[in-house]
């Protein structure tokens, strides 16, 4: 039937050609914890005989897999060049670890971790904003109105700010180095990204009178 439609009525009928999976395919459960959690419930037996999508090629149940780390790499990617982004990310992780170990050996830090991934996650966690400001026009005047933020967007903003801060550098400094500094700064609650977050909070606080303006 579909073939007939495509050959004889090419422009009249819209055929979804780009969708890889039919709608009844379910998302895969690929992490160990999620699988165990599904096994606890009856859900697991239901899923056994349901057609399932393949896992994406950057998702795995490896111990090195972390969804947030993957997101950072995706946000770093420029012009589809993910390979380069991954290389730069690995370099910056190495840089974080080297500087951190150096600091520990110099005795500057007490009981600090040298795990760059933990530091990255800490940095992202520290730079997450609590709210955001949206421009709302009322009577010809645009107000910056403080609005609560979803968890997903707060993570996105934190990563975006970290990367923006890392990209804003002198020409002679390499990206991985600068990114590593920003991560270390943010992980210890200092630096430009944390300042940016606090500035946003301050501005939101001074605009708190407009909070009831939002409607959209």
């Amino acid at each position, binding site marked *: 039937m579909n073939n007939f439609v495509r050959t004889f009525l090419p422009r009249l009928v819209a055929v979804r050609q780009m969708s890889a999976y039919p709608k009844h395919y379910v998302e895969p459960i690929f992490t160990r914890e999620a699988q165990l959690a599904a096994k606890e419930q009856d859900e697991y037996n239901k899923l056994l005989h349901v057609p399932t999508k393949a896992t994406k090629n950057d998702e795995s149940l490896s111990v090195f897999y972390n969804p947030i780390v993957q997101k950072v790499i995706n946000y770093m990617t420029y012009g589809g060049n993910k390979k380069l982004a991954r290389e730069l990310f690995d370099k910056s992780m190495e840089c974080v670890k080297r500087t951190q170990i150096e600091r520990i050996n110099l005795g500057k830090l007490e009981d600090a971790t040298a795990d760059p991934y933990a530091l990255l996650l800490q940095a992202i966690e520290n730079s997450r904003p*609590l*709210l955001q400001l949206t421009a709302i026009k009322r009577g010809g005047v645009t107000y910056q109105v*403080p609005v*609560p*933020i*979803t*968890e997903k967007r707060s993570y996105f903003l934190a990563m975006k700010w970290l990367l923006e801060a890392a990209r804003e550098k002198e020409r002679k400094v390499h990206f991985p180095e600068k990114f590593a500094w920003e991560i270390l700064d943010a992980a210890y609650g200092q630096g430009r990204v944390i300042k940016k977050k*606090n500035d946003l*909070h*301050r501005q*939101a*606080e001074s605009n*708190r009178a407009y*909070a*009831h303006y*939002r*409607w*959209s």
Partner: protein
Amino acid sequence: MRIPTAALFAKRQARTPQNEAEVPFQEILPLRLKNTVSGKADSGSDVACLQEMSVLFACLKENDFVEKMCHKEITQFKRCYKVYMDRKATAKETINKGIVTPGKELNYKQLNKYMRRFPNPE
């Protein structure tokens, strides 16, 4: 001296009432209710968690924007917004299902479905 306007026109006669026959009534819009309601009012206001937000701001200002000191307020604010969003999502889901349950709290889609069954006589 300024003369009050009421005094100036006091001598003139009052306007004669219009002749009803000369001004026939025109039914510009049909004089009965429509069989539908618009969904505009249902969108409602998006203002949520104002109380929590003001509490959070007070705490942040007191502690010079150090988040560690306002842990309780932050979690409360986040939880409030999450609950609000969840409730919104479930409400949307029930709207899209289009199940009509008799009762007072009907949204516009349910009302339209209901009124289509009992339309106004033409």
